[in-house]
């Protein structure tokens, strides 16, 4: 009767899987038998009393225990190489990878813990990392267990810190104290902890936009530049003006929000600082989120810069670096000259230069018209006009739009000395009045330089200035010149500096970069496309019909168009062709070119 029970007990107390040694087994079974034989007797004496209920073993727990015991029993050094002949390295003894950290405590510190505290993987809580302590359930410690999680935390910390600094209104890299204000928990910081739909990066972007908005609303609240590269700009260039601050804020706002229209009009600015416009160079378009429309969009923005209604006397050099500019408005300023560098803005579609003090436009405008320029408003301006009776329609080319582009007249060529001043007895050129342009006279000196001096070799002054232009200390060079030096050297250095800011200019004849022009003349062209004045006032229509004076400059005395002014060829002989003098009196100083050839369409215009 009792034998099955005894067998069960035997089973429960002995190791099932391993092969038990013979004497041990016999001893155990003997003792248990003795125990139970006594017990049996007493039970019989009490009548039909049965044994107390055995603890219920579920199959799973039994298996677990057995596995563990077997594992411990067969634990040995792991094989180093697969070719090792050790029995432990054979496939039979392989128990699979151990699951680490399934239990919170080692098995011997708790009685039933291994049964209960196994954490399901789905409800994984963040582990608390304490100091490293060696525990006996594992011989190996893998240090890279939570490293990725840590990195992520670091990143979030950094973003959070930036947000906090921005909230408190400081600059990101400047205020050391703000970095240590970790105790102050801001609303934004708290939100970071809670799971929400917005990611941290989106928050950061939103905060930047908020910051920019706050700046525009409150002009006094802007304490300093946000980005470090502004701080690196030399501060002595121009005074830090309130208007400049506002302009800077507007530019910042545009760059942060990805806006493409920069409206700096009617701000009464006399100049726009280079650092104000500098961020526009790095402006990228903000592409809408994926899934909305076309995923592949250009990041190149189509910038529209409005600088109208200001007091600018020259175009800010930084403008010429904005190759993505499509619309540029400089209307109602005090501009007296447009640098030829404007020819580099090949993407320009709309240009407004009206209401300025321009006597002429750069000849490079033609290359813009050849490229993309569709709308060009240049009136009103005090342009020089040729005498209408001397117009000549011989030279022409076609614009992209199909409209003809014709050269109708040109002045004679002015030769300038090495410092860019006009030669002796010549008025400062170019002058706004045609009668001031140099006239050929019987005296050789007025006929320009002798042919043997018309070389393309740059002067030493020019070469030295080019070397100065390459120098990174160009802005300091004017201050390094000794006091007793002639003043025009300082002016030349300042001109060089402005040129460097604008990107330099190249000769309209040979295309070489130069600093000091040696020749210059004006050509009148019919080139400005339809401005939409048709059907409006008659005088507008008359204005539209006017040819536009375009100033050309050459880099050496050899740089002038062969056919620009045929009279120049007669200059080498001291005697002038007869009748010219009278003609000059009749037509003012504008020389026509009766034998002018047609310039081929590929022409001298740089694309």
């Amino acid at each position, binding site marked *: 009767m009792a034998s099955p029970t005894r067998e069960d007990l035997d089973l429960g107390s002995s190791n099932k899987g391993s092969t038990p040694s013979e004497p041990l087994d016999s001893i155990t079974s003997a003792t248990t038998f003795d125990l139970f034989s006594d017990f049996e007797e007493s039970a019989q004496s009490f009548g039909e009393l049965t044994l107390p209920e055995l603890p219920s073993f579920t199959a799973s727990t039994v298996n677990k225990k057995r596995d563990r015991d077997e594992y411990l029993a067969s634990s040995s050094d792991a094989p180093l190489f697969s070719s090792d002949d050790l029995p432990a390295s054979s496939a039979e003894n392989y128990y699979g990878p151990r699951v680490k950290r399934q239990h919170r405590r080692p098995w011997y510190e708790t009685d039933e813990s291994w049964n209960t505290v196994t954490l399901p993987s789905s409800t994984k809580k963040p582990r608390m990392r304490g100091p490293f302590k060696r525990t006996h359930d594992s011989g190996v410690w893998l240090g890279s267990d939570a490293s990725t999680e840590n990195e992520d935390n670091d990143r979030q910390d950094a973003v959070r810190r930036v947000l906090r600094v921005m909230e408190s209104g400081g600059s990101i890299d400047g205020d050391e104290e703000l970095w240590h204000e970790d105790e102050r928990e801001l609303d934004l910081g708290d939100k970071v902890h809670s799971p929400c739909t917005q990611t941290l990066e989106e928050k950061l972007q939103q905060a930047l936009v908020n910051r920019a908005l706050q700046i525009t609303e409150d002009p006094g609240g802007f304490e300093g530049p946000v980005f470090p590269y502004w701080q690196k700009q030399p501060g002595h260039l121009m005074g830090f003006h309130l208007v400049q601050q506002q302009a800077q804020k507007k530019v910042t706002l545009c760059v942060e929000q990805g806006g493409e229209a920069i409206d700096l009009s009617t701000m009464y600015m006399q100049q726009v600082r280079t650092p104000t416009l500098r961020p526009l160079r790095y402006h990228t378009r903000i592409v809408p989120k994926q899934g909305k429309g076309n995923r592949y969009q250009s990041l190149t923005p189509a910038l529209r810069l409005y600088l109208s209604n200001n007091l600018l006397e020259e175009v800010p050099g930084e403008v010429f670096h904005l190759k993505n500019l499509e619309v540029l408005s400089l209307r109602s300023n005090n501009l007296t000259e447009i640098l030829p560098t404007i020819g580099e803005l090949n993407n320009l579609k709309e240009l407004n230069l009206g209401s300025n003090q321009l006597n002429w436009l750069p000849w490079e405008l033609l290359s813009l018209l050849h490229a993309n320029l569709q709308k060009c408003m240049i009136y009103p301006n005090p342009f020089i006009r040729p005498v209408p009776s001397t117009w000549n329609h011989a030279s022409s080319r076609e614009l992209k739009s199909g409209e003809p582009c014709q050269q109708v007249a040109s002045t004679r060529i002015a030769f300038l000395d090495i410092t860019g001043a006009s030669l002796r007895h010549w008025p400062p050129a170019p002058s706004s009045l045609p009668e001031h342009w140099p006239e050929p006279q019987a005296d050789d000196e007025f006929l320009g330089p002798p042919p043997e001096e018309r070389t393309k070799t740059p002067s030493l002054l020019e070469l030295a200035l080019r070397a100065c232009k*390459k120098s990174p200390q160009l802005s300091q060079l004017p201050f390094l010149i000794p006091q007793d030096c002639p003043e025009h050297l300082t002016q030349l250095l300042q001109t060089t500096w402005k040129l460097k800011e604008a990107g330099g200019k190249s000769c309209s004849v040979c295309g070489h970069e130069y600093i000091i022009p040696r020749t210059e003349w004006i050509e009148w062209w019919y080139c400005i496309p339809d401005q939409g004045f048709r059907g409006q006032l008659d005088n507008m229509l008359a204005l539209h019909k006017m040819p536009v004076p375009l100033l050309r400059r050459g880099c050496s005395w050899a740089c002038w168009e062969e056919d620009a002014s045929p009279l120049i060829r007669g200059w080498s002989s001291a005697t002038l062709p007869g009748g010219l003098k009278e003609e000059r009196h009749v037509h003012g100083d504008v020389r026509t070119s009766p034998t002018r050839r047609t310039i081929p369409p590929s022409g001298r215009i740089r694309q």
Partner: protein
Amino acid sequence: MAASSSPYVTLISNDGFEFIVSRDAACVAGTVKKMLDPHSSFAESISGRCTLGTINGVVLEKVCEYLYYNLKHKDEKDVPDMEIPPELCLELLMAADYLHV
């Protein structure tokens, strides 16, 4: 004197360096050309020695290099730029203005 017809002239810097260059090259510089003009009776035109008191030897060497560079490329269409070390650019600028070259 024989010096006025000699094909070579001497340019002397303020620290005593003497550069003997051909008369053609020296006359590229406007100031030197006027100094050596045989119709003027300047002492330099007679002796053929020009003392340039504001230019030191290092700069004058570079100037002489330029004079020959100009002479060499006089009739060329595509002229390569002459190398100018950045530390000399300001002094050369002043020298060029003085020599009108």
